[in-house]
């Protein structure tokens, strides 16, 4: 095997590892607990470079919609470095409350909850709440199952609700999805989701495309973050 061939093979194998890992993470997320034992979550893998970029683009656009979402720009920079994104959805939290009158949404009973007016969808609104909190909590189990499995396999991960909102806006998740969160994964030597310096959306591996900077930046990033 030539040197060129071995390097190319390494890159191909790395990409293959990402695809396999994403599927195993999906399996772990799918089998995690659900309240009342009622299934409702779906997990969608996005592992195409261009599709991840589209998602990151949407996340960036969302940052302009709401003053509280300025950190979405930083999220977009991180997402662009991700190898795959798993979008986790909750399909019942918007349309099918759990009927156990838990009051976590603050409406005392599910009957009152059904009559509450929802926030209309529009710019600056991520989720058209109120959601059935009891149902949406299933997301927590799915997210953590993905995280636990990623940790067990030694895969770097980052959790982004911004990408979940972007996926909902892009209509690439089922229509009933009322709540979405994304877990991005990376199989690289340096996790793109850790050691994130200030102004990361402006100064990152993509924007600092200069040979000397490229040589020095990784170490600078490690020290000053």
């Amino acid at each position: 095997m030539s040197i060129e061939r071995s390097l190319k093979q390494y890159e191909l194998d790395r990409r293959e590892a990402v695809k396999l890992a994403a599927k195993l993470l999906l399996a772990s997320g799918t089998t995690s607990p659900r309240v009342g034992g009622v299934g409702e979550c779906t997990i969608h893998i996005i592992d195409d470079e261009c599709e991840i970029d589209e998602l990151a683009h949407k996340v960036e656009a969302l940052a302009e919609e709401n003053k509280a979402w300025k950190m979405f720009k930083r999220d977009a920079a991180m997402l662009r470095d991700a190898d795959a994104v798993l979008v986790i959805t909750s399909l019942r939290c918007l349309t099918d409350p759990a009927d156990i009158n838990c009051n976590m949404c603050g409406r005392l009973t599910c009957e009152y909850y059904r009559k509450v007016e929802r926030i209309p969808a529009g710019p600056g609104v991520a989720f058209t709440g109120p959601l059935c909190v009891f149902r949406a909590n299933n997301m927590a189990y799915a997210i953590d199952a993905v995280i636990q499995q990623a940790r067990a396999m030694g895969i770097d991960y980052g959790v982004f609700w911004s990408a979940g909102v972007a996926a909902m806006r892009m209509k690439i998740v089922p229509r009933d999805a009322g709540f979405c969160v994304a877990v991005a994964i990376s199989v690289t030597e340096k996790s793109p989701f850790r050691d994130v310096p200030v102004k990361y959306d402006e100064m990152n591996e993509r924007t600092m495309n200069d040979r000397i900077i490229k040589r020095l930046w990784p170490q600078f990033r490690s020290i000053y973050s």
Partner: protein
Amino acid sequence: MAVKNMNDMLQDGLDRAVELMMVAAHNSYRFGNRNTITCVSVGKEEMEQIAEFAYSLGDMSPLAARDGRFLRDLIKEPCALLVFGDRRKSDLNFNCGACGYRTCAELNKAEEMESLTARGPSCQFKNISLNIAANAAASLAWRLGLHCRVFSTLAMAAFALQIIPDVDVVTSVAVSTARVDPFFDRHKFWTQEHWDETFSREFPTFTRGFIGAIE
């Protein structure tokens, strides 16, 4: 060398496992990089109280009654119950709308609704962080080979009995080192006749030939 009794070792192992579960939960992933979760390990006496209270809710919630009755059996063998709780108000400033209010400030100013099970309205992301902690504990228990199940009913009973202080929303994880897994397939609580009767009452169409042919 002294011979150590199996039951003593099981109890010691369980105690250690519960401590490790607490560590896993405490260090689990959180949204907004904040760690405000409270967690307690409930003793046998309190578990008895929880069991009685949950069972007494039979008319209101069959699910709570089921778990209360089950907990009375569970405490006969080595077991533990971890109750997790958090405050309902948001300090995240995500302004996401999931709670039904446009901003976190609106949610924090909204009228608090009191009930036996939780105080609402609560921040969705705080809830998710809380349940991630519960899942981290459950996940470790699973890997350690403990019998394990996540219970919201028992946590709500603990909340109503004020066993866990200064929290608004709760969840719980029960673990056990019983001889067989006590948490799933709990068929011993009803007879075949009772099951058949309940099933035919709840799902009358299942045994019907075609719609309209009652007798």
